[in-house]
């Protein structure tokens, strides 16, 4: 087979790829939602007085961050059935990707929380606020804005990592491109289109993130 781009074939497969793009975006959105919430839990768990808990969570975060996501996806998908828990590819994929990125996001939050000036803590103490109120009303609202840049980067990152879900059969973009390729014995157009679709989404997304971040910073007078 030589290089010859077939436009007819391109337009034939484009609707299918765009439909799969929706799945990719859903996967990224769902995974990110899990990561945003779980990441906060992991970050706060490292700030309790219990040193055992802090140490354990710290090590777990390190472990998740230093091992490949694709391996974690396989692990969660295949190990469940061994113990009688059957997860659908979507569920397993969302858990894996959410867990993986929650480790990264917890680091972003941690840096954000540590950047809140000490005087804020002391003021809460002086006002006799409960720990819960201190976090919910004073610390977290101040820790989130500086974290936005990092959070945005990982949103784009999670989007770019969704093709790994194809390995357990989640019908996202890469999976669909593989299917089209093997049905037609043509890989040039599907794979190239996948690349183009990724660029078409992630480049504007990254640019939007930068604008959004600047606006937040200006609003806060930073």
């Amino acid at each position, binding site marked *: 087979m030589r290089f010859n781009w077939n436009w007819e074939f391109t337009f034939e497969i484009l609707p299918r790829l765009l439909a799969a793009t929706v799945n990719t975006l859903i996967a990224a959105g769902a995974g990110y939602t899990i990561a945003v919430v779980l990441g906060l839990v992991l970050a706060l768990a490292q700030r309790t007085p219990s040193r055992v808990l802090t140490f354990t969570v710290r090590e777990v975060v390190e472990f998740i961050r230093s091992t490949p996501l694709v391996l*974690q996806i396989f692990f969660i998908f295949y*190990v469940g059935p061994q113990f009688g828990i059957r997860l659908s590819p979507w569920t397993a994929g969302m858990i894996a990707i959410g867990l993986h990125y929650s480790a990264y996001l917890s680091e972003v939050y941690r840096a954000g929380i540590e950047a809140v000036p000490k005087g804020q803590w002391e003021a809460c103490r002086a006002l006799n606020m409960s720990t819960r109120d201190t976090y919910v009303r004073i610390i977290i609202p101040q820790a989130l804005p500086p974290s936005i840049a990092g959070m945005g980067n990982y949103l784009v990152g999670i989007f770019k990592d969704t093709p790994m879900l194809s390995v357990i059969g989640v019908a996202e973009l890469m999976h669909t491109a593989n299917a089209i390729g093997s049905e037609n014995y043509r890989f040039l157009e599907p794979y190239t289109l996948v690349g183009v679709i990724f660029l078409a989404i992630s480049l504007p997304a990254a640019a939007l993130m930068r604008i959004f971040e600047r606006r937040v910073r200006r609003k806060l007078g930073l």
Partner: protein
Amino acid sequence: MSIIEFLQTYGGLIASGTWVTIAQFLLASAVAIGVALVAGLGKLSGNWLIRGTAVTYIEIFRGTSLLVQLFWIFYVLPLFGLTFDKFTAGFVSVGLNVGAYGAEIVRGAIQAVPKGQWEAAYTLSMSPAKRMRRIILPQALVLMLPSWGNLLIELLKGTALVALISVTDLMFQTRQINASTFLSAQAFGTALVIYYILARFLITPFMRWLERVMARRLGRA
């Protein structure tokens, strides 16, 4: 099957996979560092053609997924007459992907070298090439090492994807073992631990050591 029996039976396969992963890691790192230096310097070039090429490379490789790049390089590039065997396609893809992120690190570090250093080199009438090689790059190197430590761990994780084009690395071997024995927890669990050991107890300490050595050679320790 206990984990000990498991390792006795499949230890050989896992070890051979680990060696392939290490080889992929080393080769991909070499590609990534080389490409990052060239693209990072290219992005700072005064020539618009060089700058444009560097920016295009960086944006394309940072804007798409490693998996897409890997499949494209392995399955589509041959149609253009450029055929790589799977082992080469593996480390080249991973290296090019990580190199694009590395290029930004290189650029940032070069720009972070204090202005006085540039001016001093200029005053001593050093040529731009000599200034870069002898004054700016050595100082930039020290500044960028911590970021490279993180990036090399990302690179190690990236090499796991080469299993999907059938490079017989650690990931590939564990999938084979899983497919033939269904001992998923043991197979994937062992692989997770090996990747963790490589990242945490080999790459990270090595980079810390390198940071210390480089700082000392610049007389900053």
